[in-house]
């Protein structure tokens, strides 16, 4: 009987140690969960992961390797997520959730051959251009900051456009710089193209 009472007392009155254990478990669990979540997030944010599927490796990545964002004089380069995934947390999570559709696309094989990919290129490109237009080319501006552009170092054609249309906010990067990292689809009907 004495023993039962003792157990009851221990169980009914939360001891300091108990609270400490609960807190510690919660803390460790939180660290493990959050760490795991972030690790998973950053693993899916690498070029190795993106090009893990042949749809990306054989089409967009292969085209990308010829462009200036991959190969250039200074050796600084952008990877897939630098342009296609926002850097700040909120937009990144939204983009990541939206990108889960790509997993579905991979499973159902929407673009699993070159022909299918080429057929879909325009709709995919238009979607990405719209995303960049709507967010004022936010991902371009992670590296290319208008504030620090030295017009004296730019070609006269660049200065003309950057100091007028871009400076006034009338146009954004993607309006003119389409097809700089991947091949273009049929540009009929796209603004700014013949």
């Amino acid at each position, binding site marked *: 009987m004495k023993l039962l009472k003792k157990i009851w007392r221990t169980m009914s009155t939360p001891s300091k140690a108990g609270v400490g254990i609960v807190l510690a478990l919660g803390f460790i669990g939180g660290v493990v969960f959050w760490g795991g979540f972030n690790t998973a997030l950053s693993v899916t944010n690498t070029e190795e992961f993106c090009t893990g599927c042949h749809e990306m490796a054989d089409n967009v990545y292969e085209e990308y390797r010829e*462009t*200036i964002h991959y190969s250039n004089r200074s050796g600084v380069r952008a990877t897939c997520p630098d342009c296609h995934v926002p850097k700040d947390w909120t937009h990144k999570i939204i983009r990541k959730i939206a990108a889960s559709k790509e997993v579905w696309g991979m499973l159902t094989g929407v673009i699993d051959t070159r022909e299918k990919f080429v057929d879909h290129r325009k709709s995919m490109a238009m979607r990405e251009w719209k995303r960049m237009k709507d967010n004022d080319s936010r991902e371009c501006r992670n590296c290319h900051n208008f504030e620090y552009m030295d017009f004296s170092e730019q*070609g*006269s*054609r*660049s200065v*003309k*456009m950057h100091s007028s249309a871009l400076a006034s906010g009338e146009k954004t990067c993607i309006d*003119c710089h389409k*097809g*700089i990292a991947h*091949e*273009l*689809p*049929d*540009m009929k009907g796209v603004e*700014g*193209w*013949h």
Partner: protein
Amino acid sequence: MKKIMLALMIMGMAAGAVAQEKQVVPSNIGGVESLRGSAELDVTRSADKHKRVIKDREPLQRNYVHQPPIIPHQIRGYKINLNANKCLSCHGWKYARETGATKVSPTHFETRDGMTLSDISPRRYFCLQCHVPQVDGKPLVDNDFEAVDSLSQN
């Protein structure tokens, strides 16, 4: 007997001379050199240093009538194919005023039968067939060519 010996000696000397001659000309290009340097036929000459395209400058004057104007800027990554023509994004009539680029000449709207189309004729679609960018290369031979008087803008 002496005559035969003499004949043999002469033949031997001749053969020796031929052999010597072969040693004198080891080249298989017959001593011919091109302006870009000499290379044996069975050897691949190392490539010249890659020349840089001049970045951006004012339109260059033409040297003769009907010369296709040359491109005074870089064109890296500008694609011209079935899907797109980057040149026309600035030089097409639709965009030339906005971009300040030289307009495509109306001669480019004509078919080979002299019919004028409402847009660039397919035979004139591939700009780089005639118009080319320039590198800062030195002429291989001296050249004192001068543009005709009517075209010089001095």
